[in-house]
């Protein structure tokens, strides 16, 4: 590419963020990635950084050893290179500056990414998630709710999908009238239908009420939503903003519903802060946890001062309120914020997740994101800084949603089919621009870009390797006994999500993973069961009766007991080559996986445990000449410890 002046720099040092360690290697700059390859041949780690992941590049002042280059990524990776020659550093720096700011959508990685699938496979990938089928699953259309074609041409609301569901009694003039009274034309539409109580969750944007304006059609619209539910005489209107913000909006001719003008509504403020507060909060959080030799006190104070967990709790509180209103009172709820695409999406999606076990499965979670985030026009391009950046529009709204789900998985270890790696993976790809799903700001824009013809769907990719994201403790019977999750909102349940915000700081992670281990056991259970079944059928073929009383002899017992080492695994031993492959993947992170779509496994939690990675004390320097003990790979996915 014409922007790359220096494709390769040797003798580059990569400094560790939290210790004095550094490794030397070669830096490669390609059209899509920045790649660092360690020159040490034994443990040659590679780091692949997608240009779209880079949030900022900073050139620090020259030091004696070279020119430092600090790169911050949106997936919370932070790398610190020292490049020996200032000119090389400047070349890399200016190339990156250009590369990480694509000027048109065509430059995004998704349009050049090719996972070696044919057109048919790609199309099938895009057809995996079908929102019409999803509404059908909820029981819509029904006698009270119908599909309207009013937005077929995106004429009423540009940021809504073509197909929206409204009450039967809401006629087209009412819809159009209501949309004119709502910010950005985002009139009240159905997003989730709680079949059991016929209660609906609807979403919209703020009314343009100013200090006294009213709109009869809008009032009719709310009336229609209320009438569609016979269980309750009233509907809740949740304004997810703090009251002060809503009041301030009135001065600009916007505002909130006046209870006097609307019959039978119960109005409620929730108090989730706006995108600017959230952006600042995350910034503070990352500064806090990125500090070197952080003390426990500084850590906790930093966590508190960032306010991040407070915001997470506010979102969770709102979702719980929503779920309670719908499932306990059987009342319909209308949710809005200002434009109805940030806080509204968070609350609706999280609320539905609490109410409906389907959304806690892998497929269901994809549907949920597709519905409440993608189709209803959460501005992914702006919030995730995909193109033509306006720093004021960037905000970690979707990240917060993922974190809320994570907090729930921590409280309900058996309720979710997926593990946190699924959430982290989605987060990775929201920013990677490798797949078409999250590009652009609205359905309409995505259609204009012809994403379905020109890019691939993330969901197909994730489903193809879904065994990596399974939660081994998931129990479908839990969903039966707990159809509605009732999380506790005690402050101590809100924890810092280390595996997200410090995901690339390897030394921090647990050295052995329960999750991985139990998954391996489960996998091996299934395999053994399979062999037993196969043997049974074989025997039956030969006309031998298998008595169920006699214990089945698994095939692995046939040989003499193997040596203890192999028993550590408790699962089929991977061949050396496979292990190598797995490890490579682990190091490359996600970007590399695309090259080997067939391979399985690969998790990032697992790290070597060694004294050098933990700064225990001042001993380090005093024994500079001592060799570090070699690293022994005990088992893929679990332990790498010093011997």
């Amino acid at each position: 590419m014409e922007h790359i002046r220096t494709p390769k720099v040797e003798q580059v040092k990569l400094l560790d963020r939290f210790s004095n360690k550094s490794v030397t290697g070669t830096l490669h700059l390609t059209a899509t990635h920045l790649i660092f390859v360690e020159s040490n041949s034994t443990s040659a780690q590679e780091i692949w950084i997608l240009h779209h992941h880079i949030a900022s590049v900073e050139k620090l002042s020259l030091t004696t050893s070279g020119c430092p280059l600090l790169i911050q990524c949106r997936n919370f990776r932070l790398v610190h290179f020292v490049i020996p020659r200032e000119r090389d550093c400047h070349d890399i720096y200016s190339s990156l500056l250009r590369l990480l700011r694509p000027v048109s959508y065509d430059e995004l990685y998704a349009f050049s990414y090719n996972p070696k699938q044919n057109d048919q496979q790609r199309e099938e990938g895009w057809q995996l998630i079908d929102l019409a089928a999803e509404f059908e699953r909820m029981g819509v259309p029904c006698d009270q709710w119908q599909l309207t074609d009013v937005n077929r041409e995106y004429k009423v609301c540009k940021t809504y999908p073509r197909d929206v569901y409204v009450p039967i009694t809401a006629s087209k003039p009412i819809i159009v009238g209501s949309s004119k009274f709502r910010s950005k034309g985002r009139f009240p539409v159905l997003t989730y239908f709680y079949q059991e109580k016929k209660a609906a969750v609807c979403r919209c944007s703020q009314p343009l009420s100013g200090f006294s304006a009213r709109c009869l059609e809008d009032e009719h619209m709310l009336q229609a939503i209320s009438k569609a539910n016979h269980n309750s005489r009233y509907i809740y209107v949740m304004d997810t903003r703090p009251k002060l913000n809503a009041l301030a909006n009135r001065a600009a001719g916007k505002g909130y519903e006046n209870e006097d003008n609307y019959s039978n509504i119960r109005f409620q403020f929730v108090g989730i802060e706006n995108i600017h507060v959230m952006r600042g909060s995350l910034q503070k959080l990352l500064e806090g946890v990125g500090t070197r030799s952080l003390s426990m006190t500084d850590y906790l104070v930093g966590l508190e001062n960032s306010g991040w967990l407070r915001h997470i709790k506010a979102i969770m509180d709102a979702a719980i309120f929503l779920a309670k209103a719908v499932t306990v009172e059987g009342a319909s709820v209308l949710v809005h914020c200002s434009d109805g695409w940030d806080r509204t999406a968070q609350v609706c999606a999280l609320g539905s997740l609490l109410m409906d076990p389907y959304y806690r499965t892998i497929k269901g979670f994809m549907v949920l994101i597709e519905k409440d985030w993608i189709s209803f026009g959460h501005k992914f391009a702006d919030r995730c800084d995909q193109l033509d950046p306006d720093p004021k529009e960037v905000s970690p709204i979707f990240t917060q949603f993922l974190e809320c789900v994570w907090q729930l998985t921590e409280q309900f270890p058996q309720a979710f089919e997926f593990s946190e790696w699924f959430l982290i993976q989605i987060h990775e790809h929201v920013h990677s621009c490798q797949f078409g799903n999250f590009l652009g700001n609205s359905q309409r824009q995505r259609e204009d870009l012809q994403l379905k013809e020109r890019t691939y769907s993330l969901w197909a990719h994730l489903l193809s390797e879904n065994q990596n994201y399974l939660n081994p403790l998931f129990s479908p019977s839990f969903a039966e006994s707990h159809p509605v999750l009732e999380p506790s909102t005690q402050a101590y349940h809100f924890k810092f999500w280390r595996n997200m915000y410090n995901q690339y700081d390897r030394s921090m992670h647990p050295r052995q993973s329960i999750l991985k281990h139990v998954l391996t056991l489960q996998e091996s259970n299934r395999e053994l069961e399979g062999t037993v079944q196969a043997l049974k059928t074989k025997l039956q073929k030969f006309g031998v009766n298998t008595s169920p009383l006699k214990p089945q002899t698994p095939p692995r017992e046939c040989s003499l007991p193997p040596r203890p080492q192999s028993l550590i695994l408790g699962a089929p031993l991977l061949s050396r080559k496979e292990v190598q492959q797995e490890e490579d993947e682990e190091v490359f992170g996600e970007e590399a996986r695309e090259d080997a779509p067939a391979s399985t496994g690969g998790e990032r939690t697992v790290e070597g445990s060694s004294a050098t990675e933990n700064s225990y004390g001042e001993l380090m320097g005093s024994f500079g000449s001592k060799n570090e003990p070699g690293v022994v790979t005990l088992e893929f996915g679990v332990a790498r410890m010093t011997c």
Partner: protein
Amino acid sequence: MELSEHIKTANVEAVTLRRPFHPALRGTLCVTSHHLLFSDRKDEASRQLLILIKNIDAIEKSVENLFGYPRAVGSSGTITIKCKDLLVLQLEIPGMEECLNIASSIEVLNIVITSHRQKERLLWDRWRVSKVNSDYSVCPSYPSAVIVPREVDDDKLIRSARFRQGGRFPVLSYCHHRNGMVIMRSSQPLTGANKKRCKEDELLLQAVIDGSELGYIIDLRSAQQAQQARMTGGGFESKSCYSHWKRIHRHHERGKVVQESLIKLVEVCSDPSHTVDRWLSKLENSKWLSHVHSALSTAGLVVECVERDGHSVLVHGSEGTDNTLLVSSLAQLILDPASRTVTGFLCLLEREWIQAGHPFQQRCAHSVYSHARLKQECPSFLLLLDCVWQVWRQFPLALEFSEALLLRLAQEVYASNYGTFLCNSEQERCAAGVKENTHCLFQSLLKPDIEEQYLNPLYEPTDLAIWPSVHPQSLQLWTGMFLRWTKHAQNMEEAREEVWRIVKEHRERAGPDRTNNTLSTHCDTLTPFENLMDELTIL
């Protein structure tokens, strides 16, 4: 290096065994770390032969087809094994490569096993059990028997004891097998304001590090505190008197401060009305996690000295009965696979806490709710359990016991039907006749079948050191302990049961050999040295 790593070929099929008075047998040959196993693998009346590798005196091999076609189909070799009990056997092994491998494995193993033993004897040569404290007159808080360097006689010990607070002279706490380095513990030296010296104490420490090397003294007080201690008769080992020891100061809170931390922590945990911000600020304010952080960091530092840099360590604070024990026992948990089993962990507690004279009665007289004025209460032991829990969080497969065992211990230490945690020292326990009149908690935990809830279903022993991460992000509030009476705990319990279910299912399917093997590895890791240590605790 594991013994089994020397084994190049573990088993060979279709081997023919010839020995006097027996017909030739065909079967499978298997080499393990200590044995040579031959079996004809017939279900009934199978013939097996088990030979200790130590029993093999000489081994001769003759290989056919040595020249010419190395991988020829018919190639085979014969090994003649001549044992120390004068038995001579012949093994015909198909495949030249296997034959050579087996022969060389046996040869190497024979040498390695011998050197293993010698190394251990060498270790033991340097240390001895001293009964100098048999009437508890030298140090009232020490047990009657302690391990000290062999070359230091009892008189020197008595003098050294006079120079240490409470008579707690340096004794062996742990010996690291891999390199023979040790962890010692003691109380502070009584140097006082005028910098007194004690020749015997210096000699004792000198004997520990065997002259030429360098040792580390981890002083669990800040340098300033150590200086101040001199005003009240205490002090520290000065560089000039202990030239081969390098002193490192790490500040640890003790006594009342830690107790107050716990009180504050429990207070904030039991108030459900806190906002997130208030919760975090109160959690910070309690400083409990800071204590956990510093205990684990210092233990990590000790392990770093012993394992990575190969130096012996002396740990002490002032009295040597709280933080000293905390750090030395955590270091062992990190270093020593044997202390990560149920038995090993309870032995560790017996040795490092009960025998070593942690004053349980004083420290655990009251817990957090009491209105009584604080005297000597300090939750050092609870802090240890919390730290162990943190290690388990980071290495969920490495410990044989579960969180439930830690919780049980936390409960027993404050109030117990058993005599284990009674009194402040072995002397007091002896005087009170604790052993005669009460039952032992550890015994009841271990016998006859340990309850399943105390076991970690995922346990897979590893011989490596398990270095915990001490980044604040890696440490967590021990919810199982401090929030155990919340509704939330129920979901966790169910999840735990699910893990058990999966593991059991796997054990059933994969057969019992797995579990048997983990058991046998335990036995392997309990080396004669530890057995002696265990015996000591029974003494």
